[in-house]
């Protein structure tokens, strides 16, 4: 893990709110090996998407990045000036946006939306070379070259998401952050889009961070899975290990709440609600919903500890497995 392509250390993001500071991302650390696929899962509002934007340094007021470090190929991003950071977006770290239904400019043709990305990153090509490059990109993601002349409203949801992937890979980024890329799509299209994403990712050798809440999809796609709860990473483990021996009670609850074809009947959920980020419980933020919670959990915030294998978990009660 020494030559990590992306290294996030103690990243913290908060939002100013009239009722108090909202800590949306609270001391998240992880690293990403070249070509690795990391999943980040958690309930809505746990800070997944905020973290994706924080890595790109795109948090808008009233939000702010309070601290922490993000390194891409060893280069610290927090000290870059705005222009250098702009050039790094897409070229170094590309975003495949959440809800691609609205992620394309409705009044511009798809081709033009790829063109301006290339142009603003200093790629100057002749008309024909440009058209060829755009056609190539579209075909790479499984779209006809003719889609370049279409407007977003003329495409289906899956096609729009593919177009977004085409834009994301147009400068061959080192890291792709896919923020719930398929949450608005039906399962058939979802699968096609994920396969496309997996294929272009392999071809580019880019590392991927897949943000989402669909544990089933995650399990199929990623190598390693991180579980977030209330702005913190509570467990990170290789996906097989996590599914078979989850260490954190929250992870266990997430996994057992997946519907299964074998055991039909009522769906099992997690009791209680996700806590308000501006009013977190003391100690372990999960303790009010945790059946195992003891005195220590109410007082002391657990840190991530090695749990055997490549797993880490932040729970006082979890025991390392050899």
């Amino acid at each position, binding site marked *: 893990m020494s030559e990590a392509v992306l290294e996030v250390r103690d990243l913290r993001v908060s939002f100013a709110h009239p009722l108090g500071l909202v800590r949306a991302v609270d001391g998240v650390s992880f690293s990403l090996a070249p070509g690795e696929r990391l999943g980040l899962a958690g309930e809505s509002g746990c800070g997944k998407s905020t973290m994706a934007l924080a890595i790109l340094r795109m948090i808008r007021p009233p939000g702010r990045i309070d601290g922490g470090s993000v390194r891409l190929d060893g280069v610290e991003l927090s000290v870059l000036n705005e222009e250098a950071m702009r050039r*790094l*977006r897409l070229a170094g770290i590309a975003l495949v946006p959440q809800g691609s239904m609205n*992620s394309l400019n409705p009044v511009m043709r798809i081709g033009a939306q790829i063109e301006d990305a290339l142009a*603003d990153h200093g790629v100057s090509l002749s008309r024909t070379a440009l058209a060829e490059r755009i056609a190539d990109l579209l075909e790479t993601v499984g779209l006809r070259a003719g889609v370049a002349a279409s407007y977003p409203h003329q495409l289906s949801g899956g096609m729009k998401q593919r177009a977004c992937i085409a834009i994301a890979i147009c400068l061959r980024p080192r890291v792709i952050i896919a923020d719930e890329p398929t949450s608005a799509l039906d399962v058939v299209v979802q699968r096609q889009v994920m396969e496309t994403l997996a294929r272009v990712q392999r071809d580019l050798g880019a590392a991927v961070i897949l943000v989402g809440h669909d544990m089933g999809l995650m399990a199929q796609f990623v190598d390693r899975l991180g579980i977030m709860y209330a702005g913190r990473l509570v467990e990170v483990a290789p996906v097989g290990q996590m599914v078979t021996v989850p260490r954190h009670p929250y992870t266990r609850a997430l996994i057992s709440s997946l519907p299964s074809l074998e055991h039909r009947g009522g769906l099992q959920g997690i009791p209680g609600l996700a806590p308000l980020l501006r009013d977190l419980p003391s100690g372990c933020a999960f303790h009010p919903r945790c059946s195992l919670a003891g005195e220590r959990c109410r007082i002391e915030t657990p840190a991530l500890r090695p749990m055997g294998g490549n797993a880490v978990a932040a729970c006082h009660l979890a025991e390392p497995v050899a």
Partner: protein
Amino acid sequence: MQAVYVIKRFGVFLLIVWVAATLNFFLPKLSGQDPVRTKLLQEAAIGGNVQVGMEQMVKEYDKRFGLDRPLLAQYGSYLYDVGHFDLNYSISSYPRTVKELIAEALPWTVGLLATTTLLSFAIGTLLGALLAWPRAPAWMRYLMPPLWALHAIPFFLFGLILVYVFAFKLQLLPMFGGYSPGASPGLTWDFISDVAAHSILPALSIILVSIGGWALAMRGMMVTTMGEDYVVFAEAKGLRAGTVFMRYCVRNAILPQTTALVLALGQILSGAVLVEVIFGFPGIGALLFHAIQENDQFLIQGIVFTVIAALGLATFLLDIAYPLLDPRISYRRT
């Protein structure tokens, strides 16, 4: 497909004009006033004439204007005339025709209002867009409160203040009229600069007052647009701030503004009555004011009809142009 769309829209345009013309014909009839008699009585009062032969004169004029025929026959010939852009004689300025009077006033109004409307739209929209833009220079924030304050002042009142300060106290600019009394109208440099000098104050009163409105509307649209997913993605694409601003934010936020602009341009023909009256500007607004004062029904009808036709035409052109501005609006539907 596009031809069908255009034809349909044109049909709607004709329908609007017809409805307007019909209302325009019947509404004054409902008032129960007899314009010819009123006019002659006025003349008589001014001239001190004895009212001998008055009834005969009324009859004679009614016959000449076709006012003695049954209502439906009048309506029929009115529609025929309007269809031929014949708006009848002006009663107050007889024997001049309404068409002549409007044609004389029109260039003044269009020149003043088209320029001011377009200028205030351009300046106001750009200001509004920049005000919503977080990277805009900080001093811009101080610009807005005064503009909003100005926006709250009716522009004829602001016009009076301008006249008082610049024309009366400082004597920098002419106070009244479209051009100096002695000037001979023509395409000479002297005349043009004379007209320009006369237009500055009325133009300024309209521009300064309306910029705030455009800016306010645009700022609101910009704030909404900047929250859209495509703007976030545009930023994630690492586009230059200028590209994100113009091609993603402004380009989308300006769409409702264009509708408002076209409607404002359509309304130009009604003139800015109060501004024109205050500045003695020889435009349509002043003409309408005069027509109402004199109870010149034909002139009022003619002006109102022209205004409605212009508004209908503007809406028609907007309908035709809108699919070009916003590809989501297609020619196929409706």
